[in-house]
């Protein structure tokens, strides 16, 4: 029975990943992260993604604060934040978030406050979606490794 649980969980994980790839939420860079995970660094993906979440939420707060201020005009500084967000999203394979950053950056280069506000909303939405899906993935992975851990060693 436990064996079935592990296989089903793995199938669920693969299905979720396939959907995320198909929707363009993640790209091949995420696969690279997974490939870098091994016995010497068994939580690598989780660690990197956790850093990404922390940094992203800080950046989103800054962007939201900036654009809430009607007097805000330092679009160059905003561009620097967006480059950072863009870079880290690209590094973990968060394709859709990255693409919104590109559009956001274009709007900020044009000092287009309305365009920036719209981009920010889109960015917050995409980021939330990504975060939820990645948490789902991590939960499945955790369940799978717990179920796999109960198996007889010979069957591993």
């Amino acid at each position: 029975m436990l064996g079935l649980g592990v296989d089903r969980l793995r199938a669920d994980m693969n299905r979720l990943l396939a959907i995320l790839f198909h929707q363009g939420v993640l790209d091949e860079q995420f696969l690279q992260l997974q490939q870098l995970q091994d016995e010497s660094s068994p939580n690598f993906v989780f660690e990197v993604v956790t850093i990404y979440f922390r940094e992203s939420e800080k950046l989103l707060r800054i962007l939201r604060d900036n654009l809430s201020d009607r007097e805000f005009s330092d679009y160059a500084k905003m561009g620097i934040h967006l480059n950072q967000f863009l870079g880290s999203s690209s590094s973990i394979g968060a394709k859709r978030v990255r693409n919104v950053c590109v559009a956001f950056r274009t709007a900020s280069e044009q000092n287009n406050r309305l365009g920036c506000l719209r981009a920010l909303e889109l960015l917050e939405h995409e980021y939330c979606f990504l975060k939820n899906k990645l948490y789902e993935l991590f939960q499945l992975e955790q369940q799978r490794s717990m179920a796999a851990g109960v198996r007889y060693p010979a069957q591993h």
Partner: protein
Amino acid sequence: MGMATDTQFHVLAVDDSLIDRKLIERLLKTSSYQVTTVDSGIKALEFLGLQDDERNDTNSPSLSPDHHQEIEVNLIITDYCMPGMTGYDLLKKIKTSSSLRDIPVVIMSSENVPSRINRCLEEGAEEFFLKPVQLADVNRLKPHLLKRKTRDESHVQTPSPLQQQQQQQQQQQDQQFLQQQPQPQQSNNNKRKALDEALSPERTRPRYNGITTVV
């Protein structure tokens, strides 16, 4: 130089992004390199033992270049876009330092700008990697490290300061000679690959594809 022949190569990675530092560290460790990461060019220079006020080639005769470096670094890989000292600035500092100029330097960048790539290669960078860096890129580092090792191993005994100076001059001449020769095919192809990837519209790794996002 006191190098044990079987020690791992030591790479110094420089990037202001924590995520990218984690990534490059993992990539390098997976490829069996020893890794040190720092988050700025200034910290990199500190680590390499190069103080801000060091003047090139005015070392007193009693000091050998080795005394500046406590820890040996075999390769430096650095991000281009960093606040303060850019990767390019760091590259220049290294290549104009008498004690560090022989260390191969690789530049990473998320921006695909041919003029930037050319400038770095002209300044002496061995390779230019586009981010996100992948295992295939890290696999291209070995030839550059092995090339240095072969050259260094021919100077086994610790010479007198005068001999060292003569050796340095000889090394400089060798390096100039090497640079004038047609480079080995492989490393030429690697540099060209980075350039080609930058210049040609089609790429193995998709970039900016399918952007339908309109704001």
